């Protein structure tokens, strides 16, 4: 498996390749196109473009995070109800008036229903 053999063979094959492609040149049109491309897209413009893409990607991520946290975390005010209730123990002797806060989240769209038992003469302690 000793590939590179004697030199004459190498020279012959190299000459044949040279004969076939030795006269090939880049066309003037392509040469000027490459030069134009090189001048318009230099190293710094490439870096700038890549930096701009990174900045856009970061902004999108940041906006996404803000959107998520603002809708999931705090409950919007329209879903908060303040109710005033009066409650007592089982014997209905000690009555307490209190204020409760009913909250509902936007996501599961559920409400807490509180039913207060009414009494004609509540004793407020």
């Amino acid at each position, binding site marked *: *498996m*000793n*590939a*590179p053999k004697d030199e004459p*063979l*190498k020279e*012959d*094959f*190299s000459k*044949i*390749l*040279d*004969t*076939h*492609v*030795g006269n*090939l*040149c*880049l*066309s003037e049109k*392509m*040469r000027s*196109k*490459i*030069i134009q*491309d*090189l*001048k318009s*897209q*230099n*190293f*710094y413009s*490439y870096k700038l473009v890549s930096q701009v893409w990174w900045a856009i990607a970061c902004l999108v991520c940041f906006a996404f995070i803000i959107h998520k946290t603002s809708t999931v975390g705090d409950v919007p005010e329209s879903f908060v109800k303040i109710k005033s209730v009066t409650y007592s123990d089982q014997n209905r002797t000690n009555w307490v008036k209190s204020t409760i806060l009913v909250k509902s989240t936007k996501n599961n769209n559920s409400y807490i229903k509180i039913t207060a038992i009414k009494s004609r003469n509540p004793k407020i302690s």
Partner: protein
Amino acid sequence: MNEETLRLALKQGDKDVFVHLLDLYGDRLFRSAFLLCGEKNVAEDLVQETFLQALRSAKKFRGQSAIYTWLHGILLNLNRKRNRNIFRLVFPGRLPEIQDRSLKEKILPDDSKKIAELINSSIQLLPLKHREVLIMFYFENLSIEKISQQIGVGEGTVKSRLYYARAKLEKFLPPELNLFSF
């Protein structure tokens, strides 16, 4: 501009140096690209993309190899990428057609153009890794050691690939072209 001046200019991101490099190495790269891919239009695109890629990675050039070797390395990588993308395209008639032609056509020893055309079309039938080594050895005139450094494989692997490339090429070529008789 000598090699050292060009290297310094490259490190500094001087874009004018690329115009100079295009004048120096553009045609040589084009010929190598043509042998690698077998089509002039594709070879031109490869050379164009090589220079743009070189511009982007100029700052990373460590100067451990010659500038042409660096550019040629980029060209090889781009051609490999292109080869991966076109790998799924199958041209069913291509192989038998060339094999038939090589067997039927009588080629005169002095018909160098026809010989060269036939060799070029046969080179295109070789697997890329064999083609690369063959072109680097016979066309770029690189030593086994240099080829092994450039493509990142051992010298034994380069020799083996060269051996198989020649053995396969011999099958595609008619008996008159007795270049690769073992």
